[in-house]
């Protein structure tokens, strides 16, 4: 059993200006290399949870915190924001808010330069990041003039150059067209499966991510109300409906038939491919 990449126990946080806690008794563990999906309505506390993971809570943001947050074995209360930045990076929803350098290369260099690393190490990291994000031919370009998909990719690269163990992505595909979305999700899969990074991703586009993630957390009003495998969470749409959420399209369609008595052999399909396969089995009469 490896040490957890992320361990949150009994985390409660209330902003100093707020009338009630934004996070309430959060318990969450991610094992190294896992891709976890975080879903929940706006205002559920997802953003506050990110701030706690990168150490801005409790170091910079005023409020009352109880409980413990540890990333890669480092307790956020005992390590500075700069120390935490070498263990956990965040890619925001809107890459424009994150990118500011005049070239892609400077963007990738910014984090390592701030760590005061030797020049050859910085160069090595820029190359590694550019290779990972497959934008080696765009290093001289101005990020502001790249497409939305390329900008999102550069934002991921700038986090990668810090070599964190945990990467948080806040709705990375919400501003992207289908092709760009698929490229970004494939990149996320590579970061986890080939490089062992632990990923926490918030995403509304469930159809795309249902087949990609290992674990799903559902947040509502500052609490984690559901926690399980994709099959445990999406495969039981009634519990999502009760929370005002929907399951992936293939699951919803199969569920509508299941409620009429159709037998899907215990597990509802989650992705389009699984949906198609399930209906093929039905045709052959083998649930």
């Amino acid at each position, binding site marked *: 059993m490896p040490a957890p990449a992320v361990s949150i126990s009994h985390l409660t946080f209330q902003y100093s200006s707020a009338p009630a806690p934004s996070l309430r008794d959060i318990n969450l563990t991610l094992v190294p290399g896992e891709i976890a999906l975080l879903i929940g309505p706006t205002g559920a506390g997802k953003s506050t949870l990110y701030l706690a993971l990168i150490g801005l809570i409790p170091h910079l943001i005023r409020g009352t915190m109880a409980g413990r947050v540890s990333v890669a074995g480092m307790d956020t209360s005992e390590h500075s924001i700069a120390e935490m930045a070498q263990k956990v990076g965040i890619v925001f929803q809107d890459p424009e808010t994150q990118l500011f350098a005049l070239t892609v290369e400077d963007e990738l260099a910014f984090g390592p330069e701030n760590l005061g690393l030797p020049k050859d190490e910085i160069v090595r990291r820029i190359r590694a990041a550019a290779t990972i994000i497959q934008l080696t031919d765009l290093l001289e370009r101005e990020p502001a003039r790249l497409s939305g998909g390329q900008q999102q990719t550069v934002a991921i690269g700038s986090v990668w150059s810090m070599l964190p163990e945990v990467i948080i992505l806040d709705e990375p595909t919400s501003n992207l*067209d289908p092709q760009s979305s698929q490229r970004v999700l494939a990149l996320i899969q590579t970061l986890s499966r080939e490089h062992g990074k632990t990923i926490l991703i918030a995403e509304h586009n469930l159809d795309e991510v249902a087949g990609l993630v290992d674990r799903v957390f559902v947040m509502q009003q500052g609490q984690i109300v559901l926690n399980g495998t994709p099959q445990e969470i999406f495969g039981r749409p009634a519990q999502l409906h009760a929370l005002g959420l*929907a399951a992936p399209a293939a699951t*919803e369609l199969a569920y509508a038939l299941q409620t009429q008595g159709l037998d899907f052999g215990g597990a509802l399909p989650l992705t389009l491919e699984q949906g198609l396969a399930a209906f093929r089995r039905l045709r052959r009469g083998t649930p």
Partner: protein
Amino acid sequence: MSAELILEARDLVHTYAGGHTALRGISLGIRPGEFVAFVGANGSGKTTLMKHFNGLLKPTQGQFLVSGRDTRKTTVSRLAQTIGFVFQNPDHQIFCYSVWEETLFGLQQQKLPPAEAQARAARALEMVGLADRRDRHPRELSRGQRQRLATASVLAMETPVLVLDEPTTGQDFTARRQIMSLAVDLHQRGRTIIMVTHDMALVAEYATRAIVLHAGQVAQDAAPADIFLQPELLARTGLRLPPLLELAQALRAEGWPVEGHTVAALAQSLQAALPAAPWTSPGAASAPPPSESHARH
């Protein structure tokens, strides 16, 4: 004829100062009361075209007309009385210190009587579900709530045309339903609704007309259902069917007689096609019957 059009583009070309031509000869007309979706991949010219609606950009060739008036000869404030804009990034729009001030701002600029302005602002906040947050600083709101605030400040202007730029970006299932039922409601009251999006599920569900932009030109202008039946058009223009319709199409390709655009309709047609499938006894399924309110798309 053009007098009947509330928006009209005539051979519209737009070339940016840097030399990039984003629009390459667009001609189209939108009649009052339509529910139109502009769709296209990133970089197709959607945003550039939209900025011509309110005069933020002017054609470098051709014309753009709002209620028959050439935008080059009309002030932006005049255009703003016809067209309300809800932008993709609410933070580009919000600048006041409270939700209430933000909602009132545009109305005060128009010098409406205070009682009328306050009534409109209150109505708009009610419509987006932020009535209980009027004294909060916009920064204290979540992104989804800020997007709804931006919507409220535009709704308060009560313009005949409402443009929604990626209205569901960053919105969860519930908020998406809220914002779109608001659009449907306004449409039923006679407003012209224009949405700019790459969310094809949204187009399938709500629009009566879809205009596909690709490389600065109109690639197709048709009913959404017609566009969904053209896989090569979708592939060429970087669009993708909504997941539910993608599954329905794949099933149809394998010979299933599936009909409809909603979970309920598709399920019904599949049920009829599966008489010999392994059905358990009626009512044996542990789950409750499907609820219409959760049917997707």
